[in-house]
């Protein structure tokens, strides 16, 4: 798999990073071979992003050293790193909405003549790379008009075309559709052929096996192992290295699904959705599955009153008011798609985040009961095993997966009887994922209804009792989950295959 002569392009030794109260990266040493795809895996909060930030000069290591091509490497800024041939795709989106796609692609890398911009071969390369991944994006369009996935693609194209010989990608596929992921992999393989080294971080283990040459596992900030993926004995070994135990999830029919319909949606129609009708029963977990843009989020937001729509939604026999406030009041809660912009109050602490969706529970006469707020925070930190040194930690200082758990905690706190979970485990590690699945199942067992909106088929088939397949705003089909679901049929339906009418 690797070429005949291997050479180390990047190595770190004794690398350590301390945050107040946390050692995020702890004495990590390993080497990366040139022209490979080197995967970095680990649980949420294992220190992957922190490691990446040090490699790109966004953070200074507390101690330890790094070297590139055998030379000592101490980048002070991403620009420094870029000069050293290291380009990065960060976990959070970093595009400028106010500029055009093309302007974003060359941002920070423009050629200029006395301060005036001039065309460069870089521009052409960027446009070509973009076209290779997603030809439908117009380079002259304003980025503000693009979807999250499209923005992510722009960042990928920018990093891939930057001419760097080391490219770091921190969860690049979290928001991408399978088609886009395939195209991205094509680009990454081409980069590798051109002797570019890719450091690839993802929680999706299939991707790791599909793409990676070598893997480095981090746990609790410590380096566990670095070895060729060929020597890894399947998912279970990788998972065990990551979290120190094995996890399995497969669907087992639950006997608690009641017969009482709690939610009835009739003829939901928006600019994207077309006459969508369905119902959800007490104690049931339903899944909505479709590609990006199929309309899953739109349904979730409509049920929750976050967007306006035509049609009717009844919950427990009564129409639901058309604002989130009303939805919460009638017992519906939403875990939104994007945790940072829609779910969290990042500059507030965990304690301050949790009670927001159910204020009456922690206040009397408009005045907070301080002890209750504290207790609630402690309770959920424990229940969801949120990795933090204190409930007073600002949520922006949590790792991505732990942030997602805080959003989850917020929703659980609302005591909802119907939970709408939009991409509930995006960016969540396998360990935490199964914890979240257990929580979801528990909730359903207690008689609550849950709707999972996900673009991960594995997730859908792992926990849902019934699955709705979406394509282009239409609810195409409803199938019961079970051991004999036809996956190729599902994929056919959600990609617009016509021949399926009824089963």
């Amino acid at each position, binding site marked *: 798999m690797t070429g005949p002569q291997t050479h180390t392009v990047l190595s770190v030794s004794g690398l350590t990073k301390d945050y107040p109260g946390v050692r995020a990266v702890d004495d990590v040493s390993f080497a990366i071979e040139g022209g490979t795809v080197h995967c970095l895996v680990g649980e949420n909060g294992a220190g992957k992003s922190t490691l990446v930030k040090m490699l790109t000069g966004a953070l200074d290591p507390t101690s330890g050293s790094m070297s590139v091509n055998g030379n000592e490497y101490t980048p002070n800024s991403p620009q420094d790193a870029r000069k050293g041939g290291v380009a990065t795709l960060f976990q959070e989106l970093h*595009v*400028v909405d106010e500029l055009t796609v093309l302007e974003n692609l060359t*941002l920070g890398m*423009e050629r200029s003549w006395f*301060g*005036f911009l001039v065309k460069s071969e870089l521009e052409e390369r960027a446009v070509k790379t973009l076209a290779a991944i997603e030809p439908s994006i117009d380079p002259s369009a304003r980025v503000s008009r693009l979807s999250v996935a499209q923005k992510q693609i722009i960042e990928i194209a920018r990093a891939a075309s930057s001419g760097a010989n080391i490219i770091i990608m921190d969860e690049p596929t979290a928001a991408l559709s399978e088609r886009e992921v395939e195209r991205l992999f094509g680009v990454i393989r081409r980069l590798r052929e051109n002797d570019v080294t890719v450091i690839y971080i993802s929680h999706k283990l299939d991707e790791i096996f599909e793409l990676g040459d070598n893997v480095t596992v981090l746990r609790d900030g410590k380096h566990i192992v670095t070895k060729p993926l060929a020597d890894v004995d399947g998912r279970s070994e990788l998972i065990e290295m990551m979290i120190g135990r094995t996890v399995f999830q497969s669907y087992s029919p639950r006997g608690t699904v009641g017969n009482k319909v709690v939610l009835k949606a009739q003829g939901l129609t928006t600019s994207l959705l077309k006459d969508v009708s369905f119902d959800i029963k007490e104690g049931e977990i339903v899944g909505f599955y479709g590609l990006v843009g199929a309309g899953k989020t739109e349904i979730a937001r409509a049920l929750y009153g976050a967007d306006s729509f035509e049609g009717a939604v009844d919950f427990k026999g009564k129409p639901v008011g058309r604002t989130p406030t009303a939805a919460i009041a009638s017992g519906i809660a939403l875990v939104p798609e994007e945790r940072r912009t829609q779910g969290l109050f990042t500059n507030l602490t965990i304690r301050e985040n949790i009670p927001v969706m159910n204020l009456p529970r922690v206040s009397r006469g408009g005045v907070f009961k301080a002890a209750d707020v504290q207790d609630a925070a402690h309770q959920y930190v424990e229940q969801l095993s949120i990795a933090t040194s204190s409930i007073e930690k600002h949520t922006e200082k949590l790792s991505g997966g732990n942030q997602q758990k805080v959003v989850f905690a917020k929703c659980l706190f609302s005591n909802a009887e119907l939970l709408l979970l939009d991409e509930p485990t995006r960016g969540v590690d396998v360990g935490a994922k199964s914890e979240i699945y257990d929580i979801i199942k528990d909730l359903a067992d207690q008689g609550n209804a849950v709707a999972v909106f996900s673009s991960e088929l594995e997730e859908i088939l792992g926990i849902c009792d019934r699955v709705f397949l979406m394509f282009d705003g239409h609810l195409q089909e409803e199938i019961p989950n079970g051991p004999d679901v036809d996956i190729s049929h599902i994929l056919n339906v959600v990609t617009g295959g016509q021949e399926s009418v009824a089963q």
Partner: protein
Amino acid sequence: MTSYSNQTSSAARFTSFLRNYYIYFVLVAVVVLLSTANLDQFALFERGNFLYKRNIINILRVSAPLLVMAGAFTLLMVSGYIDLSVGSAMSLSAVVYAMLAINGVPFIPAFALTVLVGVLLGAVNGFLVVRLNITPVIATLITLSLFKGVALLLVQDGVSAIKSGNFLKIPGWFNDYGRAKVLFDLPAAFWVAVAVTLALIVVQNRGKLGKYAAATGGNPTAAKLSGINTGRTVFLLYVIVGASAALAGIARSSFMSLGDPLSGDGMELTAILVVLLGGTAFSGGEGKVLRSFVGALIIMMLTVGMLTIVPAYYQTLVIGSALLAAAASNHLVSRKGKES
């Protein structure tokens, strides 16, 4: 999917057309309003009417200080920053310029030195904001106070301005820059404002600085992570604003034939007003130099052009309403586009 995006793009094109050009509609509306308001008394284009040449020249002439500042101020606001000290910087420059002139320094060196002072003042702001990391509003409020204090300090106690006195006399060339007819009966100060604006339009659309300003204002983290030195961008913009404030001070000073340490008072508000009227977002990222220039023309037309039509105490109300109306129509238009 393609048909969907085609549909929006024609609606979107209409929207962006309106958004880009609404300020010119406002301009036309104001001109029509002002020139018809007097119709019962004066025929169009006659002496005393708004569209009378002399009046237009007057308005453009007194507008020079605001016009010369609008562009630089826009770029700064596009980058998400603000400078409340422009009025004081302008006053201080006016005082410095008059002091140089009254002490016998000829036009060119006096002009150049004053612009240099403006650059320095801008650098002070840049230093406070970029280096010391002080919130722009507070930092430039500090310098607002500081520059004003220094300007007053330079003028003798009990006297309101640097002006001809017993011993020193303002030289004869002094008010040529702001008043003498150079081209189309307009003075150099106006043409300098036009030139500065044109230069800044090019910088905004073709220059690295313009793009970096937009990136810095639109998404500072992204800009930094892309390797843009946002600090240097912002510093440079403050310097440019400082220099343009100095040009404004020179224009005002030579128009008034004296160096008044209070002559720029309140200019920061007018500048903000103009830039906002031009559709620049306060949050940064968006805004166009030319639109602010037109915004400045509108404000000056309203303040000066209305004088002979209604008592001056209607001015605040009219300008405030104009700002609200412009903002409302602008935003309503762009919102409708988004929803369809």
